[in-house]
């Protein structure tokens, strides 16, 4: 039936290995990029075929066992894949967006020394991500989970000669590892809890089936889900583990688009969706998730207000949007969360690629003029809409989408989330306030970005300003496709209140409905309330856009005054609430101190002190006794004779 499922991750793996081994010899960029992109596209085709098949299939959950993996005692684990509506959506997003970004990269990475390396890593990433979403048990998922972490590490550190890049890569991996610690603890607890009930499994389907063995709302299931959530915060850059994502912008821009916007960072959301049965059973965890998600959405948005680096703004925007998804998961709006995941993948990938296009152009211009200004600093941009029309239009469309303006994709998904956070049985009006405030700020800083970059006067150095070209077609085609998706992507999930049938939710229902039903999670409230909330959120977004227009188009001197007036607040926000410094002081420095202490004091002084002390005692005794050893032959001989006499005497007398 779905036996060709394994081909989906297999194609990128082949690409990764091929380019990794032979890319250096091939040298031809078209061949390397073509292979990588082509294999991604093949993978997309297989994914689409399976997706369509699943659409028409009444049986929605399919497992495919590839091989056995670990067999120890009662513990048996397979390499197995799982196709259900949830993973079907995910593979479509991953392979689809992935193919576009691969195509984009051919143009963007042109002329790089490590061209083959880049594509090898990208394909490896696609492979890992597909393993993550297709994994049929928690451990296969974890392989993908760590695999994407690895690729993220490799790609962030792609410019490894830059210290900041390699440091950012390390930070990303290590912070993710903190999350993995949670993931593993959750896995162990879950497995042990189930095994003690007689079910030795990590298989998702079986976990879902035997979830009822655990006490609903009990301590155990809360601990398990909290541990998993810690894992999710690491991968999806939520409070408290979000600090790595902005730094991860050291990687090439397509990487930011694919990994740090569209796919990998959403893995945490996907994972919660995958285990929704367990999460639904733990209201305390759900509440934690909702609060953390809401707070992340809010805080990241505040930081985004003040950044000047085009990619950093997008990075904080990503963190903020991920916060939305977690908010959705936390209030039980699983399908809304996944929906937002998908639309976010479209418009955020488009935004990142658009920013990449801008950076590409700026870089080109600076290179031409032999300048070394920062091509990512928005203060050097402005008025680019005439120079890069395609980039501008797609970028604008995506910005509108992320701001939640009606008829664009972001509106549908975001409003669904806001509605659930207000009306769900697990929701609360304060969560809605957080979400709405974040939405307003999002609209503000995204349009600030657009206005600073594409409108107004051109602030680029005069020597470079005339050399900014529109990007080549390998870059613009993905932009156009993604821009289109950012517009229409929302129409598959028009909620019932707007006259739609929300086909997306129906499609995902087999995965989520059971748990939602079992734990009485549903949104309630009249249509009037829903309309009102919708109107308010749209109004907030428009206010945000208007403010941005006032501050950056109408009165360009206003922001400076504003900063001067609230300098302290600005400094805090500009420096990201000093979270990095806090972590440095609380974790990194003590850790190093303890390490040094354990080494220099405990190891060298105490432990080795005891050991060497023993040696000294023996040596001291020896020093005393060595005076009995004259070294003269006859003294030894005499000692021997004395011995003989004594022994013989002993026997004789």
């Amino acid at each position, binding site marked *: 039936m779905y036996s060709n499922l394994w081909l989906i991750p297999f194609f990128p793996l082949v690409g990764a290995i091929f380019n990794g081994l032979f890319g250096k010899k091939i040298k031809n960029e078209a061949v390397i990029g073509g292979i990588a992109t082509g294999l991604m596209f093949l993978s997309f085709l297989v994914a689409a075929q399976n997706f369509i098949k699943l659409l028409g299939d009444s049986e929605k959950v399919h497992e495919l066992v590839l091989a056995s993996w670990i067999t120890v005692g009662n513990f048996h684990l397979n390499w197995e894949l799982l196709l259900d509506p949830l993973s079907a959506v995910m593979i479509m997003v991953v392979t689809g967006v992935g193919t576009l970004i691969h195509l984009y990269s051919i143009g963007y990475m042109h002329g790089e020394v490590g061209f083959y390396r880049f594509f090898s890593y990208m394909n490896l990433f696609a492979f890992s991500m597909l393993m993550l979403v297709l994994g049929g048990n928690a451990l296969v998922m974890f392989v993908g989970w760590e695999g994407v972490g690895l690729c993220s590490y490799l790609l962030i550190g792609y410019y490894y000669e830059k210290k900041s890049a390699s440091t950012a890569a390390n930070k990303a991996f290590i912070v993710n590892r903190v999350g993995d610690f949670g993931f593993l603890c959750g896995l162990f607890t879950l497995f042990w809890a189930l095994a003690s009930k007689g079910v030795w499994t990590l298989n998702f389907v079986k976990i879902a089936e035997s979830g009822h063995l655990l006490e609903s709302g009990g301590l155990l299931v809360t601990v398990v889900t909290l541990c998993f959530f810690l894992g999710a915060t690491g991968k999806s850059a939520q409070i408290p583990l979000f600090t790595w994502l902005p730094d991860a912008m050291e990687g090439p821009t397509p990487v930011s688009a694919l990994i740090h916007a569209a796919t990998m960072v959403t893995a945490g959301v996907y994972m919660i969706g995958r285990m929704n049965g367990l999460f639904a059973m733990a209201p305390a965890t759900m509440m934690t998730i909702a609060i953390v998600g809401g707070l992340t959405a809010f805080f990241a948005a505040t930081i985004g207000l003040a950044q000047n680096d085009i990619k950093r703004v997008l990075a904080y925007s990503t963190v903020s949007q991920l916060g939305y998804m977690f908010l959705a998961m936390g209030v039980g709006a699983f399908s809304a969360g996944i929906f937002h995941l998908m639309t976010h993948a479209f418009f955020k990938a488009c935004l990142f690629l658009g920013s990449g296009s801008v950076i590409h152009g700026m870089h080109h211009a600076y290179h031409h003029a032999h300048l070394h200004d920062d091509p990512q600093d928005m203060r050097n941009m402005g008025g680019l809409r005439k120079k890069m029309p395609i980039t501008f239009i797609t970028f604008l469309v995506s910005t509108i989408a992320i701001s939640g303006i009606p008829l664009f994709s972001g509106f549908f998904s975001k409003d669904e989330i806001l509605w659930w956070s207000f009306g769900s049985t697990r929701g609360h009006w304060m969560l809605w306030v957080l979400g709405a405030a974040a939405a307003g700020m999002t609209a503000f800083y995204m349009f600030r970005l657009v206005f600073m970059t594409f409108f107004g006067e051109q602030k680029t150095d005069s020597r470079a300003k005339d050399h900014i070209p529109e990007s080549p077609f390998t870059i613009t085609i993905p932009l156009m496709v993604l821009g289109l998706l950012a517009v229409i992507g929302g129409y598959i999930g028009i909620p019932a209140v707007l006259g739609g049938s929300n086909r997306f939710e129906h499609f995902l229902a087999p995965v989520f409905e059971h748990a939602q039903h079992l734990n009485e999670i549903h949104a309630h409230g009249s249509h009037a309330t829903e309309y009102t909330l919708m109107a308010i959120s749209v109004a907030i977004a428009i206010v945000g856009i208007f403010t941005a227009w006032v501050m950056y188009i109408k009165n360009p001197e206003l922001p400076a005054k504003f900063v001067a007036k609230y300098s302290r607040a600005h400094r805090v926000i500009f420096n990201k609430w000093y979270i990095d410094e806090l972590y440095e002081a609380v974790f990194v420095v003590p850790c190093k101190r303890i390490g040094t202490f354990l080494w220099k004091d405990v190891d060298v002084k105490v432990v080795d002190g005891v050991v060497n002390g023993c040696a000294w005692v023996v040596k001291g005794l020896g020093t005393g006794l*060595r005076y009995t*050893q*004259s*070294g*003269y*032959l*006859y003294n030894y*001989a*005499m000692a021997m*004779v004395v011995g003989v006499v004594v022994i013989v005497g002993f026997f004789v007398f």
Partner: protein
Amino acid sequence: MITVNHYLLLSAILFAIGTFGVLTRKNAIVIFMCIEVMLNSVNLTFIALSRHVGNMDGQIFVFFVMTVAAAEAAVGLALMIAFYRNKDSIDVDDFNMLKW
């Protein structure tokens, strides 16, 4: 009548003399010769007792003692030559590298 005890006493005397020589002399070759005296005194004991007991084993033992003595002579003297080459002396006073 000379009994076995006479022989034993004689060999004891020779043994004691040899011991004294080993312990007092400095010249390594003389020490070596004193050891030969001691060995021979033991040989005498062996043969005397062998005859007294009426068994050949003791005499065979003397053979082996001689073999060992010969081997010892060869190796010991070679050692002395080697030593003399290094130290230009065979005084045991100079043989004090064994300490510490």
